């Protein structure tokens, strides 16, 4: 897990490596999640809301015999909730599996570490912890998400603090 997370945060100049990213659309922004963290993509799901849960919890979904807690990326970024079904990335982190609710899942992009830039300093604190820099694509930016930071337990702890 951590071995995969390292190249996200550190720019390795000596060797250019190619990384595969799953692109995710949310509002106007294109986000990327390393495919090594993705177990499965569940299309058009309607999570079951959990009353009294922390706001970032997007609800529960049934996934392969288990009940999976989902995290709403929209809520985390302070965007208004979206009506209708959303796609779910099932992510694996050190704390177990969880789902990430996004508007839609796009194609898998192969990006080069040479195009990676760290988080700009003008980002707010919240986003700086969630994002792991960005890749410069030809006509847009691919904002990297750090799956470890999106883990519900960690978000819960951060919120409590």
């Amino acid at each position: 897990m951590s071995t995969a997370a390292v190249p996200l945060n550190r720019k390795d100049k000596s060797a250019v490596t190619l990384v595969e990213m799953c692109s995710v659309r949310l509002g106007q922004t294109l986000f990327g999640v390393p495919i090594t963290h993705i177990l499965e993509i569940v299309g058009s799901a309607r999570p079951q809301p959990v009353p009294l849960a922390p706001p970032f919890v997007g609800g529960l979904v049934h996934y392969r015999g288990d009940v999976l807690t989902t995290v709403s990326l929209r809520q985390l970024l302070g965007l208004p909730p979206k009506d209708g079904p959303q796609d779910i990335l099932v992510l694996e982190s050190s704390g177990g599996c969880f789902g990430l609710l996004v508007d839609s899942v796009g194609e898998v992009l192969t990006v080069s570490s040479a195009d990676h830039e760290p988080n700009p300093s003008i980002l707010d604190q919240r986003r700086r912890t969630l994002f792991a820099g960005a890749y410069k694509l030809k006509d847009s930016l691919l904002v990297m998400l750090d799956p470890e930071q999106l883990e519900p337990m960690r978000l819960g702890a951060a919120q409590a603090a």
Partner: protein
Amino acid sequence: MDELTREFLIESQEGLDRMERCLTDLEERPQDAGLIGDIFRSVHTIKGTTGFLGFKRLEKLAHAGENLLGLLREGKLAANQQVITGLLQLLDGLRGILKTIEAENAEGTGEDAALIARLEELQLPAKAEAKHAVHARAGAATPPGAHAPLAKTPAPPAPAHVVGKNEPVEAVQGLAEAETDPARPRAQATAAESSLRVDVTLLNRMMNLVGELVLTRNQVLQATSADPNMTLLSRRLDMVTADLRESVMKARMQPVSNIFSKMPRIVRDLSQGLGRRVRLQVEGQDTELDKSLLEAIKDPLTHAVRNALDHGIEPPAEREAAGKDPEGTLKLRAVQEGSHVLIEVSDDGAGIAVERVRQKAIERGLITAERANQLVERELLQLIFLPGFSTAAAVTNVSGRGVGMDVVRTNVEKIGGKVELDSRAGKGTTLRLRIPLTLAIIPALIVRSVNQSFALPQGALSELVHVPPGQAATAIEWIENAPLYRLRGKLLPLVFLDRLLMPGVEHRVATERDNFIAVLDADGRRFGLVVDGLADPEEIVVKPLSSVLKTIGLYSGATVLGNADLALILDPGAIALKAGVTMRAEEEAARAADSEVEEEKKNLDYLLVEAAERQAAVPLGDVLRIEQIPLSRIEYIGYRPVLNFDGQLLPVEDSGGVLAAAQGNPDAQIIVVVCREGSRHVGIAVSHVLDVAAGGDLFEAGTAQRTGGVTLLKDRVTGVVDLGGVAPLPATEQAPAEWSQIAETVA
């Protein structure tokens, strides 16, 4: 750790467990050659394998033990108290080293010289009597093959001879042992071939998958119910799933002997330490229970046994003074009762000194003196389960039990079980643990609130109250902002589920539609949970929640319903806590006593039903649930109506002619009262359920004998349905002979 070592650890552990059982038995039957042989083999196997694996320290200790056991086996030494104590120390020593190997993959550097010296010392008396040795060796040296035809007859239990007095008998014993010896490993080998060690995680995974299959089946059944082509297939799927579920659940079952077998040692050690004389009786060792439940009751049970010895059974002198056998009896009993396993710990000790309990409860401020004086004996006993009570160390020394009884109760209730206590001064105390057979799949009622489904475990549900539209405003009364409902004349605190779940939103009591009150009993806290709607009861598979949702505290898990919806499982105890439904200690004690009284009264309460315009009564205690179903769900075996419930066939009794009357009307709904009759369930078809009422006794004129089969309900003589008269489902089709007789009883 390599596979070989792991295997060795598991096998040795089992061997030592067996040795422990045999040792405690040996204390009662010191001459039993079979027992000594068993113990010898356990130690011998360990010694043999350790040498091979290179565990020198273990080998040395096992060797010392083997020498001593060898003398016992040859009959040169009597299995007296000292020897058995020595062997138990050997057992502990071996266990200690095994534990170190398991943890560190090495046997550690501990010193066993003292123990080895002790074991050698115990061999001395035998060596002094060399002439017996010669004699016995002659017997043992006889080739076992010469006696092969005899090997099949088990050695008769040896009469209690004092070693050394009767040499010929000794020699014969040696022979008998040698004869049975070769036969035994053969029997064990066949047992080993037909069974298999399976990893518990694999079993858990299987259970999980079966749960998944149950859900999928539920969904398939719902989706295909309208398609006649699928009926046969889905019914088959239904049956196979039910069978598979049962088999996997069986695979997780373990006999209670797994924990009972630890008790003789505890009883032995404790009774010696406390100066008590105790005989342990164990019953129902083969009763089986899910592995996880077995683990969960291990500590409460040990606690109960300790309590019984510490505070229950008196010292021998005291017992003799009271005219009792100086040796006390501690009974452990396990028995399956329906979907529960009952585990009983009973002693014939002094019982609980109720007066001391009363005093102490007042001293500790758990109850007011005024209230305490009103409580009857049984109510006072319940005080022992109060959390504050247990910490009072002084009480436990003087009066009855008390150490951690609240912990025992909490642990047992955590797994959905119940604890009951019975005590009679001077006669003894009985503690009953009622444990459900399995955990993973529980019956639940599905309720609706805030436009979602929630599952309420049936275990906590005591009854349901329907508040029809328009009546909510009058039925629900308020003291300031506390809602209350008058349930049979008593005020029941209410909790609105929607208000609890959505605290920020303005709520008002919806009077224009139905409201339902689920009356819950969570650890003695009774309250009514107000929900918007009720759906069918379902067998749900409990799925764990992520820790971030567990911290909310209201939900004990989640489940997938038959319609593929997810539902959160509500935790009644947590709801009571969150809503502030608490009880002062005295109320709780009174309540607990109340519920016991209710238990007794249950048989006198009846469900008043109407079938074909005649009224009949069903004992309320036997009613499990009431189902409203479409007539089309009733199927027939021959001409007997049956109902298929998730693969379980329920015979439906229709002596009232309800089914016949509705025949021909495809949309007809009928009501089936599902009742418990002994270990089976039966259904009774009725047209209406009228009321619940207390029945009065009727006496035959002249004889003043209580009449059976009828009761006085609401001042009317009403027939009681004879559940026992419902004929069991035939294995092969046959007409029930008692048919007409049942019709009479219902009428």
